[in-house]
């Protein structure tokens, strides 16, 4: 996208119904995960804060380079783990000592010792669901559309390309300078992507 200063860009935008707010961001493409991490760190040092990367596999170091906070998933899982244990204890107590008072083999109607296996299993079961559903919720998935899909080469991000994104809602964002900055840190190709 060439922003030629001679053209009345504002008027054209208005006519076509595309404003600045319709830009998703600028995407720079890298061939190598290490280049991506170096570039991400430099871009962040330039003062950008709304950054993202798209990679075919987890690239270690990119989170810290572009300032992505730690996952909060662990807290969600711990909460549901406790719910799982409590569910098992309540279930066994309710079924055995309240609903169905049946003495079998001279054993007590309720005792902590015989609840251990089921309490353990339900703790694991609840935590596993919490970690998978929680992961999707934190990621905002499932979703049918995302503006990054407008990038021509978005499909390569799950194959062999490493993309660095400066998002449009960054306070420092300007399509032209952002594109230049990405070029200066070594991006092979740079493109402004509409939102």
């Amino acid at each position, binding site marked *: 996208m060439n922003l030629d200063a001679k053209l009345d860009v504002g008027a054209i935008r208005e006519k076509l119904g595309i404003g600045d707010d319709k830009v998703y961001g600028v995407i720079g493409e890298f061939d190598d995960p290490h280049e991506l991490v170096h570039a991400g760190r430099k871009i962040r040092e330039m003062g950008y804060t709304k950054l*993202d990367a798209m*990679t075919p*596999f*987890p690239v270690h170091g990119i989170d810290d380079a572009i300032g992505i906070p730690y996952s909060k998933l662990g807290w969600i899982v711990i909460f549901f783990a406790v719910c799982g244990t409590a569910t098992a204890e309540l279930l066994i107590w309710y079924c055995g000592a309240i609903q169905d008072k*049946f003495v079998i083999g001279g054993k007590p109607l309720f005792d902590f010792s015989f609840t251990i296996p089921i309490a353990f299993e339900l703790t694991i079961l609840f*935590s596993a669901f919490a970690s998978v559903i929680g*992961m999707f919720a934190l*990621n905002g998935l*499932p979703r049918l559309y995302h503006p990054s899909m407008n990038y021509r080469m978005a499909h390569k991000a*799950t194959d062999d390309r490493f993309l660095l994104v400066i998002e449009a809602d960054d306070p420092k964002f300007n399509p032209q300078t952002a594109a230049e900055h990405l070029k200066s840190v070594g991006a092979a190709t740079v493109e402004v992507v509409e939102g």
Partner: protein
Amino acid sequence: MSETAITQNPALMDVNPPLVRAKDYHDLSDQISGIVEGDVIKTPTKYWITLGVTASITVLLAAMLTYLVSTGIGVWGNNRPIGWAWDITNFVFWIGIGHAGTLISAILFLFRQKWRTSINRSAEAMTLFAVMCAGIFPLFHTGRPWRAYWLFPVPNTDLTMWQNFRSPLIWDVFAVSTYFTVSLLFWYTGLIPDLATLRDRAISKIKQIVFGIMSFGWRGSARHWRNYEAAYLILAGLSTPLVLSVHSIVSFDFATSVIPGWHTTIFPPYFVAGAIFSGFACVMTLLLIARWTLNLQNLITMKHLENMNKIILVTGSFVGYAYACEFFIAWYSGNIYERFQFWNRAFGPYWWAAWSMYTCNVFIPQLYWFRTMRRSLPVMFIISITTNIGMWFERFVIIVTSLHRDFVPSSWGYFRPTWVDMCTFAGTIGLFLTLFLLFARFLPMIAMSEVKGVLMYEKQHFKGQQAPVEAK
């Protein structure tokens, strides 16, 4: 270093050979996705023939179960005193097979064993299919499988009772169903980035939509990966105690009873070691077949196979130790029933089952002390089969031999499987292989996103020393 340089310095390759052979990330996507896409890499005819055979055997399973339900449980050979016979043997056998999948995907992940990445997906799939086969047996053993929901504490009007939570049998219901569910979640979570790759490579509209829905809109954002890796680590952390608990709880079904031969405290670790042993052998059988039929030599290398053989040797030796320990404790206990039980196990009417078990599980795997044996494809294929025969006999010995001699000689008996018993078991093998073959062809059998991570690591550490990519 080029191909010639490697041949000039073979010692370098041999000491620390790279795990996977691929030119670059894109080549890796091509090698793995190509099998699923089936347009560049054509599915071999031998694949469809094999699938036809296994699918026919699966039909046999459906026929046997229909016959069983329409006629009655008497078509099986179960009798008094051997109420748990062929079917529970098969249940424990199949559950045990599943354990290797979780071990590879969870425990080896926590130990940062990078070689697991080429085999974990198929091992996890194998877990799911094995647990499905396992579930069939206790379900039909109940006699009225349409009342299966009585196993779960659901409010019901037709049964004015609740489950007896003091019994290990209900613990088993919870353990096995949790195991299946968590394994499914773990497996599917791992599949999502690869399904996104398939979506992005798909040419036809239908494939784009199907893989698009299945991948939940995954786009590989750094935020996604951070939460994803947290989820994967947590799932691995959860699955590790889970896999150890499942066969422990299965063993409680036996250990909490008062039957000589069952009532021992060694059962939980003994069952878990045996489960991992048989599971690894089963992964080995399947991988060797898949590697051969789908040409996966670049991705499943000798190093993977050798590492698995080392685990088979270790767990086989655990099992051997457990057998010896059982005999020692039987003698040391001074209990006449216990002593008789173990004498009878080795020299009684079922001596052939016991000695098949000792030979296949303890003696044959000792060949793996030799490196040439660990690296020989025919040897490892045969040992993977004999190990599973041995582990099936282990469950048969524990169940049938322990039950056929009761405390009072008037209630002694003998179990012979009927043709329905045998065909049902054969049918589950057919179901297992059919599901595995379908998986290997229609879903990415190797975790692309994980292997790419290994490839990146190797690019750094073996700058240019990668092994030549084998031509197909």
